[in-house]
């Protein structure tokens, strides 16, 4: 409940208004309920009591008066006449006169003599009627009539003459009683009754009144009822008015809340709140709208800026992509300028010489010289404006300049590499020719001498040595040139279908003399390669196999060399196993490096260029094969494993 109240201003206002209407009513009702009635009742009580008292006095004085009058009467001498006759009309007339006291129910006065005979009466009706003496009491009440009897005495000798009787209907006392007070014979006191005992003749009687609360309070109740009805209407009125007022407060708030929610969810900052009131809520709505408008403007401006920057970024990236593909400095500059002109709103140019008459902001372009590492001024970009708009723009243009220069550097670098590469290739091919020519002469003449001239053994020996040395030199040259060609990517690969077994046999044929020279055993292990045809470059294939075989033979002084070829799972595995001087584990990595020949205790100067394995590896790479060298260690032989993948 508390939560509900805390959350709803509307509810609080409504309750406040209603309470303002209810509370007075409540207080009034409370008062009447607890104190009012009691007060009123008590007031009434007091009033009635007074009245009763008053009545009592009146009644008693009346009775007393009656008694006095009777007493007076009784002392009249006329009554002496009573004994004279049966009925005394004079006394009757007197009595009749006296009885006319103008009360409602007539008073009966009559005189009764000693014998009990009525001798005079105020009413002719009861003349001649016998009189029963009921009691000796002076007063008694019977049938709501007060009987008063006074003894009559003669005025002469005070002899008892009889009695003077009065019958006074108690009814007559009603004149002394206000409405709510009644006369009755004494009863047991009731709770709601208030009694006033009478004295004297009426001592057996009492006055009593009931305070009829209902009727007493009837007025109050009526008033309260009236009040309640008024209150009902009042409450309804309050309710409607308060609702209206509350609405006038809450509705603008709700409208604002809703508008805010909508703006948040739809991000539509152009939404406005409608409110035509000119009071505080109107002002609130107006300010809200202005706030939204400000925010909207700011966001739009930000978005525009963002979009602008994004566009710039894209354009810049686009420009860089373009110039990245160019291979020419001039193109690079021109395209850059062209693209830049689209990106920045100013005229921009490239000038080599800053001393010309261009005006504007100069952005220097620096190149890094490869060899010296120095920054060299390449030229300037000139932007036709007086100064930069802001720091960002300056930074932007500087970055652009740097990137352009990066591309230029790259282009120059590529050019240089290409020309260096071209120079190298040319050199190599030139050298190839240059080197071979003299060698041709040396080898040729040596061979000639041995073949055609008469020489003694010693001379032949010398010349053969010359020839061998030349051939060795030739091999070195060939290896160098081959490696260079492979590295330069200039080796020509002619793929054809080769008969594996045939080629391997050729390689064996070529190298087996070398093995025989060293008295080494030569073993062939061919498995599943009988009709195997492989697609590769025949020349290179031969070259690598021969290379590996001659290497194995070279580094084996005793034992055997085995050529193992296996075709399994679509792969061709060729292994050259020797029982030679082996390779230290640590050296296994180095072995493929060009010009490395491993120093080994047992190895004397080995023939070989040191390029053999390096070249083999290059050839393997070219043929899309893997070459691995394995050895258990020194003197434990080695294995060259060549794996051809499909």
């Amino acid at each position, binding site marked *: 409940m508390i939560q509900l109240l805390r959350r709803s201003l509307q509810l609080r206002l409504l309750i406040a208004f209603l309470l303002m209407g209810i509370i007075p009513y409540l207080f009034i009702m409370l008062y009447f309920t607890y104190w009012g009635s009691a007060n009123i009742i008590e007031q009434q009580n007091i009033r009635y009591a007074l009245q009763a008292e008053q009545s009592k006095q009146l009644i008693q004085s009346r009775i007393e008066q009656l008694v006095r009058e009777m007493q007076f009467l009784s002392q009249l001498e006329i009554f002496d006449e009573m004994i004279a006759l049966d009925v005394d009309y004079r006394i009757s007339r007197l009595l009749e006169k006296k009885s006319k006291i103008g009360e409602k129910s007539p008073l009966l006065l009559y005189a009764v003599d000693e014998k009990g005979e009525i001798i005079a009466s105020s009413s002719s009706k009861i003349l001649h009627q016998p009189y029963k003496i009921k009691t000796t009491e002076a007063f008694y009440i019977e049938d709501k009539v007060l009987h008063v009897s006074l003894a009559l005495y003669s005025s002469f000798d005070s002899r008892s003459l009889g009695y003077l009787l009065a019958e006074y209907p108690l009814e007559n006392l009603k004149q002394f009683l206000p409405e709510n007070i009644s006369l009755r014979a004494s009863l047991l006191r009731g709770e709601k009754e208030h009694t006033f005992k009478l004295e004297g003749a009426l001592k057996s009687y009492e006055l009593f009144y009931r305070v009829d609360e209902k009727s007493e309070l009837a007025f109050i109740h009526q008033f309260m009822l009236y009040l309640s009805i008024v209150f009902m209407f009042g409450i309804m009125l309050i309710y409607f008015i308060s609702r209206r007022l509350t609405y006038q407060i809450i509705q603008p708030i709700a409208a604002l809340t809703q508008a805010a929610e909508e703006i948040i969810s739809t991000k539509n900052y152009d939404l406005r709140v409608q409110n035509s009131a000119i009071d505080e809520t109107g002002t609130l709505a107006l300010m809200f709208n202005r706030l939204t408008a400000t925010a909207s403007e700011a966001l739009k401006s930000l978005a525009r800026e963002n979009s602008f920057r994004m566009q710039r970024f894209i354009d810049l990236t686009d420009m860089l992509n373009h110039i990245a593909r160019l291979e020419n400095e001039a193109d690079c500059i021109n395209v850059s300028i062209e693209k830049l002109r689209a990106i920045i709103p100013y005229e921009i140019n490239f000038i080599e010489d800053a001393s010309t008459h261009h005006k504007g902001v100069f952005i220097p372009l620096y190149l890094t010289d490869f060899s010296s590492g120095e920054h060299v001024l390449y030229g300037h970009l000139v932007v036709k404006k007086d100064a930069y708009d802001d720091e960002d723009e300056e930074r932007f243009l500087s970055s652009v300049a740097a990137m352009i220069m990066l591309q230029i550097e790259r282009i120059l670098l590529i050019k240089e590499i290409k020309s260096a590469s071209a120079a190298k290739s040319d050199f190599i091919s030139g050298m190839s*020719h240059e080197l071979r020519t003299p060698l*041709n002469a040396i080898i*040729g003449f040596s*061979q000639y001498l041995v073949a055609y001239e008469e020489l003694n053994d010693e001379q032949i020996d010398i010349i053969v040595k010359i020839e061998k040395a030349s051939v060795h030199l030739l091999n070195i040259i060939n290896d160098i040139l081959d490696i260079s060609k492979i590295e330069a990517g200039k080796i020509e690969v002619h793929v054809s279908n080769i008969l594996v077994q045939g080629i391997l046999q050729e390689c064996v044929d070529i190298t087996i003399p070398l093995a025989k020279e060293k008295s080494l055993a030569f073993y062939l292990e061919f498995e599943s390669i009988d009709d195997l045809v492989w697609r590769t470059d025949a020349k290179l294939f031969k070259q690598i196999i021969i290379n590996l075989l001659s290497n194995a033979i070279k580094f084996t002084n005793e034992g055997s060399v085995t050529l193992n070829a296996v075709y399994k799972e679509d792969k061709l595995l060729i292994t050259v196993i020797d029982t030679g001087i082996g390779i230290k584990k640590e050296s296994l990595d180095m072995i493929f490096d060009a010009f490395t020949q491993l120093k080994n205790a047992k190895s004397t100067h080995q023939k070989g260029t040191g390029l053999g394995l390096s070249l083999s590896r290059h050839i393997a790479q070219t043929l899309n094969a893997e070459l691995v060298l394995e050895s258990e260690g020194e003197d434990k032989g080695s294995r060259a494993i060549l794996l051809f993948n499909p």
Partner: protein
Amino acid sequence: MLIVDDEVMNRDVMHKILSKEGMDVYEAENGRIALDMISQDKFDLVLMDLMMPVMDGFEAIEAIRSKLKEKMPIITVSATNSAENITRAKALGADEYLMKPYHLMTMLETVKRVLK
């Protein structure tokens, strides 16, 4: 037979060997001289170097085949051994290709083969 090569030493070696084999050997320095000589005399075999000044081997071979319409065997002898050159030489009309430096035996073998 005619040996065409710009290097004197190369010509010398071949001359000596072939003479010893009992052949009649003549020499030319470049393709142009070779053509002159061929147009004047009859030769049984031409050993043509490829890299020569004035007129190189390719041009000479082409000229021999198409202009002079000589049908004698031509062996190209060259230090360059690219497949490209081999193909080109053969396409122009060479019959064999020898790579320098050549083994004595190989050269003799080729010559003898071609003369048959």
